[in-house]
């Protein structure tokens, strides 16, 4: 294992510390318990937005803290959800009296820890709503699993719910917007190689040189099947077909197309994927109205990508376009 680290046990602490130093104009970092809030939190009269999850998915979530998006991010250990004693103070720190929305990816650990923290916050008189993100179509039969995972769609939920909170929507309205994004977005991912968790020291799963894993989550954990390597267009079709099918995209639909890198794939390759995906959507008679390409929800240095499609309406488009000023997303300001 070759990594730019000092000690596997201090990876998250030192990374968060560096993030705070690099973006001191945008965020405030609490070291113990560990959480990141936007500089001007709590914003009076505004619903607070808190998200979090395991580290190793950067820029998710800390990179999305700032005006127009999250009020706080709570990082856990690498690939491990944060704990209630981090989530609770983060929630209290961003509550201005208007309540707080938790945005939670559907992974058992995240759900259990946020659920506990929400109970504790409510016991302290803070109204909490939870938006559960479960956009991953790779998980076929949710009757026998913990349900669909929250993956790439999380970024879009955070941006759009963030804009809703920023324009002054109330607690239930912000949560409803978050739910609406979640129910209109689907994602599927592929891994070309595994990643190595620093404290484990060896790759998280084994993949032969000529194999790829279709339907991965954001830790490389699989959802569908392992197949021989194909070209970019072939892989793109395999990812996009179930996404469009599950979402029921038809002629005339307007969508946001999000091609996300898992951390170890160059942007040039993500654009090759984007090119094909945009063609396929256009061939269906649908319109790609907005796009996002880059590394936004990663799995350490894993090679691979995910494709998310969000069905847009006028309000969601407007909220997507609203100003955002965070370390990882910035426009309109």
């Amino acid at each position, binding site marked *: 294992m070759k990594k730019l680290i000092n000690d596997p046990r201090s990876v998250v602490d030192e990374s968060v510390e560096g993030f705070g130093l690099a973006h001191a104009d945008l965020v405030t970092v609490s070291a113990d*318990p560990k959480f990141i809030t936007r500089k001007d939190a709590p914003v009076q009269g505004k619903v607070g937005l808190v998200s979090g999850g*395991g580290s190793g998915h950067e820029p998710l979530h800390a990179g999305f803290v700032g005006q127009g998006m999250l009020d706080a991010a709570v990082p*856990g*250990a*690498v*690939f*491990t*959800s*944060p*704990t*209630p*004693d981090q989530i609770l103070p983060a929630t209290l720190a961003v509550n201005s009296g208007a309540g707080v929305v938790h945005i939670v990816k559907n*992974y*058992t*650990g995240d759900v*259990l*820890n946020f*659920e*506990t923290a929400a109970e504790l916050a409510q016991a302290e008189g803070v109204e909490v709503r939870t938006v559960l993100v479960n956009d991953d179509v790779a*998980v076929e*039969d949710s009757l*026998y*699993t*913990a349900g669909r*995972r929250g993956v790439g769609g999380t970024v879009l939920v955070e941006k759009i719910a963030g804009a809703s909170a920023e324009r002054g929507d109330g607690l239930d309205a912000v949560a409803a917007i978050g739910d609406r994004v979640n129910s209109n977005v689907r994602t599927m991912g592929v891994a070309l190689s595994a990643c190595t*968790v620093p*404290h*484990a020291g*060896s790759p*998280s*799963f084994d993949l032969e040189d000529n194999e790829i894993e279709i339907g991965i*989550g954001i*830790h*490389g*954990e*699989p*959802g569908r099947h392992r197949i021989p390597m194909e070209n970019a267009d072939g892989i793109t079709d395999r990812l996009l077909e179930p996404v469009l099918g599950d979402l029921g995209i038809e002629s005339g639909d307007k969508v946001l197309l999000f091609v996300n890198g898992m951390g170890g794939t160059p942007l040039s390759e993500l654009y090759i994927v984007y090119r094909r995906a945009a063609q396929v959507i256009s061939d269906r008679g649908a319109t790609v109205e907005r796009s996002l390409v880059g590394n936004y929800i990663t799995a350490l240095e894993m090679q691979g990508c995910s494709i998310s499609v969000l069905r847009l309406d006028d309000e969601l488009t407007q909220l997507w376009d609203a100003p955002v000023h965070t370390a990882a997303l910035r426009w309109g300001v």
Partner: protein
Amino acid sequence: MMLDVNWAIRWLTLCAEAMAENRVWLIELDRAIGDSDHGENMDRGFQAVLDKLAEAPPETPGAAFKLTAMTLMSKVGGAAGPLYGTAFLRASTFLGDAAEVDPAALAGALVAARDGIVARGKAESGDKTMVDAWTPAAEAAQAAAAVGTGNVLEVLVAAAEAAEAGAMATDPLVARKGRASYLGERSAGHRDPGAASSALILRAAVGAAA
């Protein structure tokens, strides 16, 4: 023989040793069907429990378990943190401030711990989770306590052996809860890491009483 706070502290100390010794094994089990963090998280959590025990020594088994619950919830993360935290919290609540634990109370505490895990994780027997270790352990403890020989060690041994058998029995199962569930059929042939760490914890309870 009754169990007291010294047993509880020895148990938790042996748990910490077991997690440190088996850290890599648990990481490997989790690497196969999860995301490689279970051994690391459990080791970190129980080391923190040792620190807390040294800081403020508890006076009853119930107090020791409550401190353990709070520490695991705040230090472990993942699914294991809330699940083990709930287990120790329910055991603590069941025992109250009693200074000593007899066989019936011990079995009751183990059943309460199991019920807490089931309530928090919403998993059932056969889902390939730690419930597959805790349910047979709780039932074996109840059965051993009901025999009425008044021996806590017999209850602990029965629980530990049932947990180990239960953990081994997860090998062929297809996971239906937790991250391993995303592997579907491919999760078969691997031991559930949570069931494995549960068996280690219950085995440590025997060592602490022997």
